[in-house]
């Protein structure tokens, strides 16, 4: 279900685009400070509780990480990673979830009109009613976020708790976070908070600390403080995420060209007919198919 009270900025597979621009909202954002995340997974549980997702069967396979990737019933995953750093260990815990890109690859790839929308406040949401479960969004997302739900036949991912945030509450994960490493607010505020924390980390000796807000997707609605910005792979984050070129090529080049080409073929056939007409069999009597003699 899409939030009717929120104006839509962008909608998947829309022919003309739909924003009216009458109502504007500041872009909202979630702040994740991986440098103060303790990996307690309260956010994982809160996410499932609020969104009424069912428990997923898991097994202990030698890691603190709950499951290998996000899952249609698990939209918020803390990724654990142990790395050698500075003669010791860096135990990375990164909250993996939908990044709510300003230029969302999922939305770009989605063929179902209105199935993926970007609200005026920047939240990217799947409209389950319109989703056809084709999975194109999986290919368009540079963060490997949307997941196909085999039972519902729809795609599922974090909604940034649009049902909470619309009525002035913070997302469930932020509410549950015990350490304050998750915050919610306007994008401007969250970026300011992130930059402040990054300078603090740098002053503390972590010279490569960054605020992950990649420009390739127009910036993300989820901004992440990374202590080791020079090792994005430790966080399973792409260094230069963008809407895939192949998706753009297919959607914006091949498809229109193809339509022109097919239309061209039809017009060509007409044109041919007007110029050359039928290729008649000489002798009109011979041309028709007669019923055979009895």
């Amino acid at each position: 279900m899409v939030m009717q009270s929120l104006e839509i900025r962008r909608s998947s597979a829309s022919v003309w685009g739909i924003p009216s621009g009458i109502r504007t909202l500041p872009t909202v954002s979630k702040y994740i400070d991986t440098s103060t995340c303790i990996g307690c997974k309260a956010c994982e549980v809160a996410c499932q509780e609020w969104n009424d997702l069912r428990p997923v069967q898991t097994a202990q396979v030698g890691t603190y990480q709950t499951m290998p990737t996000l899952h249609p019933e698990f939209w918020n995953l803390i990724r654990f990673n142990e790395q050698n750093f500075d003669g010791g260990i860096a135990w990375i815990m990164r909250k993996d979830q939908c990044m709510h890109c300003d230029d969302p690859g999922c939305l770009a790839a989605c063929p179902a009109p209105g199935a993926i929308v970007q609200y005026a406040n920047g939240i990217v949401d799947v409209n389950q009613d319109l989703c056809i479960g084709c999975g194109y969004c999986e290919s368009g997302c540079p963060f490997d976020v949307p997941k196909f739900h085999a039972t519902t036949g729809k795609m599922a991912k974090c909604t940034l708790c649009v049902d909470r945030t619309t009525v002035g509450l913070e997302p469930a994960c932020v509410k549950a976070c015990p350490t304050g490493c998750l915050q919610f607010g306007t994008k401007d505020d969250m970026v300011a908070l992130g930059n402040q924390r990054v300078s603090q980390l740098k002053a503390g000796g972590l010279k490569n600390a960054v605020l992950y807000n990649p420009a390739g997707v127009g910036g993300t609605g989820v901004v992440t403080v990374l202590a080791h910005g020079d090792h994005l792979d430790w966080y399973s984050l792409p260094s230069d995420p963008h809407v895939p070129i192949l998706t753009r090529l297919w959607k914006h080049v091949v498809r229109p060209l193809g339509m022109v080409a097919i239309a061209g073929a039809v017009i060509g056939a007409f044109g041919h007919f007007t110029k050359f007409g039928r290729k008649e069999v000489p002798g009109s009597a011979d041309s028709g198919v007669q019923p055979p003699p009895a």
Partner: protein
Amino acid sequence: MSATPTARHRPVDLAVVAGRDQENLIVGNEIVRHRRASRLIHWSVSLTFFVCLFSGMPIWSPIFGWMAAFFGGLSAARVVHPWAGIAFFLFSAVMFFHWLGEMRFLPSERGWLGPKALEYMRYEGDDSEVGKYNGGQKLFFFATALGALGLLVSGLLMWWPSAFPRVVLQLSYLIHDITFIFFAIAIVFHIYLGTAAEPGTFGAMTRGTVTRGWARLHHPRWFRDVTGDDGSRRG
């Protein structure tokens, strides 16, 4: 084999009866061009193609969203499309092997890739050595077979998006699209030539028969082979 009806039969359409299981056969004024099996195969491919087309086009672009109405909406179209695709491929495969023997390229048909095709479309050139299928038809045959395969493979990858790397998926979408585009162009001409442009052709796929004149015009060598008429009587 003889298609001669027995006297006990009620008057029947001898050509159609003959066409049940025979072709390349003269029945009265007509020649059976495609026996029933061939036609069934053709129309099966054709039907599944259109199902794929109408279920696929609305996914391809929202401009064709209205087509989804045939299936009860886009979600249903998305469910129908891959299964119709499988059916389309299977029928295409049967068709491929059904006609493969008759689709051997002759050395003289090389030109169909270029100038010959244009000449043909201008209703010019010497067609006297064209057999049952001309070079264009053979080209179309192999192109569609290849297309069906391309659509199948890319389509299967697209069916299980979670199972494949993103780049593979993106390539699949591209391949599926490009294949479809060429396929669609080819089909436009196939239908145009088979209906409006060349009267008498459509019957070959409905009744299964063509007239002698049609055969002589479009496929002279086939005409000669079937009738034993080397054309000397035409003078």
